[in-house]
């Protein structure tokens, strides 16, 4: 069979399809993967960007299979919809590592964390801060994406636990800071004084909510928590503006997935699952996350 020309004898070729490089967390994860792969001698990694399109990602996976790569690292777009891509790789008998997002079919190894957990941790923090009493607003990501669905589900579990916690209103801001800002401005008008916390499905939107609250000078009455621990969110936590965020270890996940892929490519045993837990970042434990 034909091997790509740029491949030297004995070199290992890895294919990596990233969910969306224009999203900050995924970009960080992908960078970690690329950088870590560079430190491994005899390894070549090709990265492609699915731009959040399931069908496009499926095509990229097909391209990898056609190229006969030694292993594939997949950062799936979706829980359900990305399953056929996983099945396709398995049928082609190429080792597959899933990172940051599971699918219905399991790969040979999964590195990552569970979005359900992230939602739960963030909401728990809010509940604790409000002593289980108060009004909460929730800003969703793009509706129907698995991150949105699972983060919501995690948060809902907490609502069930604390009957004093009321979900006053919820709306999507499509992961977008400007949209979250406008939404929060509108909510400040509609629900003035009735809410004590805002939970945003990611930090971008949390930053938008934060800016709107600050502009209306009512931030001190409202707790804001996001997810992802992007750089700006960490700074905001440090400055005492943002109450908390949920840390996802992009570098840990990235390195773990490359290691797993190499093990599988060399036909060595590899753990089926490597869960890197989410951690709540507050002002108290911030130092460990600011490197």
């Amino acid at each position: 069979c034909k091997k790509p020309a740029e491949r030297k004898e004995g070199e290992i070729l890895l294919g990596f399809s990233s969910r969306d490089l224009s999203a900050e967390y995924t970009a960080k994860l992908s960078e970690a993967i690329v950088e870590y792969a560079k430190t491994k001698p005899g390894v070549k990694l090709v990265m492609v960007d699915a731009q959040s399109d399931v069908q496009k990602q499926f095509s990229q996976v097909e391209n990898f299979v056609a190229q006969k790569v030694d292993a594939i690292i997949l950062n799936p777009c979706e829980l359900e919809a990305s399953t056929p891509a996983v099945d396709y790789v398995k049928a082609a008998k190429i080792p597959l590592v899933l990172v940051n997002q599971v699918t219905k079919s399991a790969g040979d190894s999964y590195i990552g964390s569970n979005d359900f957990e992230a939602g739960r941790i963030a909401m728990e923090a809010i509940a604790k801060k409000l002593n289980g009493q108060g009004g909460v607003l929730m800003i969703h990501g793009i509706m129907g994406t698995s991150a949105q669905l699972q983060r919501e589900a995690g948060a809902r579990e907490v609502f069930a636990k604390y009957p004093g916690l009321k979900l006053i209103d919820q709306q999507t801001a499509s992961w977008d800071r400007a949209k979250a800002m406008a939404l929060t401005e509108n909510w400040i008008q509609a629900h003035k004084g009735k809410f004590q916390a805002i939970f945003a499905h990611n930090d971008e939107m949390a930053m938008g909510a934060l800016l709107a609250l600050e502009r209306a000078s009512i931030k001190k009455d409202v707790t804001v928590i996001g997810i992802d621990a992007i750089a700006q969110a960490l700074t905001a936590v440090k400055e005492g503006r943002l109450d908390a965020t949920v840390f996802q270890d992009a570098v840990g996940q990235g390195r773990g997935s490359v290691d797993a892929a190499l093990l599988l490519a060399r036909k060595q045993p590899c753990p089926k699952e490597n869960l890197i837990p989410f951690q709540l970042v507050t002002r108290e434990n911030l130092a460990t996350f600011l490197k």
Partner: protein
Amino acid sequence: MIHFPAFDRNLRHRVGIVVVLVVIAALLALTTDSFATAANLTNVARQVSINGILAVGVTFVLLTGGVDLSLGSVVALSGVTCALFAHPGEYPLFVPICVGLLTGGLCGLLNGVLVTRGGIAPFIVTLGMMTVARGLALILSGGKPVANMMPALTDLAGDLGPLPIPVLCFATVALLSGIFLGRFRLGRHLYAVGGNEQAARAAGVSVTRVKLLAYGTCGLLTGLAGVVLAARITTGQPNAGQAYELDAIAAVVIGGTSLSGGVGSVIGTILGVLLIGIINNGLDLQGVSSYYQAVIKGVIIVGAVWLDRRQSRS
């Protein structure tokens, strides 16, 4: 063999795009080992088929001088309705397929009715349909992907002999549409309406009927694309198809169809679809970073169209 004067003429007109396509393909074949393999070429064909079906559909609308921005949302909506009727053991295979097609067709017809009877600009009508269909897809699915589809349906994304079924769908759709537009009276009337609506009306062509046909066909094919996509990703995904309309319309316009209507051909659309498909595939094969991919893709498309138009002017 049957003689297709329109086919030959259109191919000759699009010589610029053909040249760009061939050059890019040759470059890719030379610089990568994987491009010119059967497996990869089948991949390219499979990958372009959904955009191809959409592009052929929207060719009808663009020829009449209209536009359809609702493609992506209607793909999602049809995928969802199809998947809702596709749980194993509930209905026979043709039910979800028909439901998906009908959903698309009805959305298209509604677009057509609003454009013709309502006298509203196609841009506004289909922009409205774009948000409405997306909302309906989310409502019907409860915001969650509709999974658990019957294997018979998801098999439709598989192969029939050496050829993937989606590719066969695209080929059939393109062939029939090409014949319809090139050879049938109603097809020619589509060009007439797009070229000069007043003149077509004065010559006794029923402009309303022609436009309804165009939007309806476009909707039906969008429904087909929705079903094929659902089969391929084994779910009805309410947020699928984002910005698919742009890729489809881009393919059509690259292929020489005028946005003001009256000029264009299915063969041009196919070339446009292939160009976009090969650029996407090639850039991924070359491992170009996705940020640079965007830049390169934009430059190649504009460059190809520039070459093509210069070619056909001289």
